[in-house]
């Protein structure tokens, strides 16, 4: 098979994470307490490929680019990074996508700054770009186009941009612009260095192509955009678009035909699919889930919002009704990622005034607690993310967040604190770096660590990796959690002995910031 356009990424992206989407987060950390190869096996095993080197499952975003190009008549396909050599000898264009090329997004940057060690996603990507077959093809005239949700990171890494010979960086929804770029590249025309697809250049629902091959863990998009307008989030900059059910079904069918019996419904808030404003649409949501279960034994939600969980349950008993559709002999729990962001009402008012809607933002801590109780009662396991270092954050804000964490102690969940990364409407704000850490941040990280350790052990044992088939992975994770618990005790002792105070005084010297962040 000859391809004019090869689409790929590094191993941390071209993998199915053992069928456990959440294990993908492990790729955002540096290898701790084990060799990198073992770390990579846990989070990013090599996926099944066909005899042509095409992965059975590939990241959904890359599948969309592949679909746009194939629909436009190009010879393009996603190729596993271990099978690039034979294709790059004849291909004219290499397209690469990534969630976090240089480990500058949360939580990668946080683990990097705290440990001083490069996360494996960054290491893996840089290794890919330095491969002899990539360098050789580039030397012979290969055009390289990169994009995806981490495209913005190239603006902070022009040295690598230059070193890797990247011709074009595409930031934003790329389905429309990629066809024009491919045409130019294949015709030998000059390519722009950088393209940012603004809100007026995003594809309409009809223009969004449908995937041709299976996506990782059966992920299918159900909508794009989000009406809540949180200022730190880039998704809210895009217009809101709902996929019709028949379009979703066609993508579910592609995954099912490839043998996948699971799916992840992707949206910034699954519960507002088909909504009128923020008023949920129970009929459409029940139809969506019934449809998904027709093709999948198990399903997960990518994201929901806590306000929508509380409101939809209190008004429509919707969480109960949806889990009645989802739970059966194949599935008895549901995973989801949720932005908790802060426990501070002042910060919530300033940066995410609509996050609690339809409740007033002053109720945010109560909305969080009520929603968490609903999720717990319905065996929905959230991975919550908090933002540390929002602009104008005070010790009082941090104290309110710490207090809220105490109220969440009994609810099954993982809570991951993330350092503020300037994105969305806050792209021009300063980065949160290790020397900005205050006692309040340390206290929050400490509470999150103990909370997450407690519940991670419960989740791994009781929910996530049951059965003999998962035993090796389950035991690897249990050993890792035991190691983290031991380390946490050491850190706790270190903090109690007042070492943090003295460390703060010399933090300028020990910061060991990644060079790229230091430059930023």
């Amino acid at each position, binding site marked *: 098979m000859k391809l004019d356009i090869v689409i790929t990424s590094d191993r941390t992206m071209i993998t199915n994470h053992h069928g456990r989407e959440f294990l993908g987060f492990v790729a955002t950390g540096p290898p701790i307490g084990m060799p990198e190869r073992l770390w990579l096996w846990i989070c990013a095993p090599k996926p099944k490929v066909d005899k042509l080197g095409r992965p059975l499952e590939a990241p959904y975003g890359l599948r969309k680019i592949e679909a746009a190009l194939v629909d436009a008549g190009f010879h393009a396909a996603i190729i596993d990074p271990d099978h690039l050599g034979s294709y790059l000898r004849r291909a004219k264009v290499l397209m690469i996508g990534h969630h976090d090329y240089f480990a500058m997004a949360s939580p990668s940057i946080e683990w990097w700054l705290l440990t001083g060690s490069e996360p494996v996603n960054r290491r893996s990507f840089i290794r890919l770009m330095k491969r002899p077959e990539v360098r050789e093809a580039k030397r012979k005239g290969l055009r*390289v186009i990169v994009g995806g949700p981490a495209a*913005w990171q190239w*603006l902070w890494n*022009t040295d690598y*941009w*230059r070193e890797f*010979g*990247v*011709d074009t960086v595409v930031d934003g929804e790329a389905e429309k612009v990629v066809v024009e770029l491919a045409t130019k590249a294949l015709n030998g025309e*000059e390519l*722009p*260095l*950088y*393209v*940012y*697809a*603004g*809100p*007026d*250049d995003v594809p309409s629902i009809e223009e969004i192509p449908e995937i041709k091959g299976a996506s990782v863990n059966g992920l299918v998009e159900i909508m794009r955009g989000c009406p809540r307008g949180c200022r730190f989030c*880039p998704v809210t*900059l895009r217009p809101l678009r709902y996929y019709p059910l028949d379009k979703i079904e066609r993508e579910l069918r592609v995954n099912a035909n490839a043998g996948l019996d699971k799916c992840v419904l992707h949206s910034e808030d699954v519960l507002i699919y088909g909504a009128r404003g923020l008023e949920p649409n129970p009929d459409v949501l029940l139809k969506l889930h019934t449809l998904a279960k027709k093709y999948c034994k198990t399903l997960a939600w990518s994201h929901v919002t806590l306000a929508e969980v509380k409101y939809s349950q209190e008004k429509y008993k919707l969480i109960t009704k949806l889990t009645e559709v989802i739970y059966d002999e194949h599935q008895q729990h549901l995973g989801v990622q949720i932005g908790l962001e802060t426990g501070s009402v002042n910060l919530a008012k300033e940066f995410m005034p609509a996050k609690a809607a339809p409740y007033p933002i002053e109720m945010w801590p109560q909305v969080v607690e009520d929603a968490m109780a609903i999720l717990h009662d319905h065996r929905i396991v959230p991975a919550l993310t908090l933002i540390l270092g929002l602009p104008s954050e005070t010790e009082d804000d941090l104290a309110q967040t710490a207090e809220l964490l105490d109220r969440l102690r009994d609810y099954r969940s993982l809570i991951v604190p993330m350092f503020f990364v300037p994105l*969305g*409407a806050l*792209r*021009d704000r300063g980065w949160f770096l290790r020397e900005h850490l205050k006692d309040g941040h340390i206290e929050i990280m400490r509470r999150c660590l103990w909370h997450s350790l407690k519940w991670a052990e419960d989740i791994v044992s009781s929910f996530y990796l049951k059965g003999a088939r998962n035993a090796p992975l389950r035991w690897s994770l249990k050993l890792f959690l035991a190691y983290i618990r031991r380390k946490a005790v050491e850190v706790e002792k270190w903090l109690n002995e007042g070492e943090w105070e003295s460390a703060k005084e010399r933090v300028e010297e020990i910061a060991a910031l990644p060079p790229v962040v230091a430059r930023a």
Partner: protein
Amino acid sequence: MSDLVVELDASDGVEKLVEALRSKPSARKITVYVAADDRFRSIERIKEFLVNNVSRTIVVYAKGGDQREA
């Protein structure tokens, strides 16, 4: 969609770009040709502008220098 095309010569600062945009605030797509001795310097010259943009489509071409360096 309203378009704006701006050329930045070697002696022009990013202010020329900001000024051009101010004179045509309705522009939804900006194409910028940036002169620099190598094409990646073109990006570095207007990086701050690119980082801060969220609302408009921007296309950047390098002008002059070694176009085929990549």
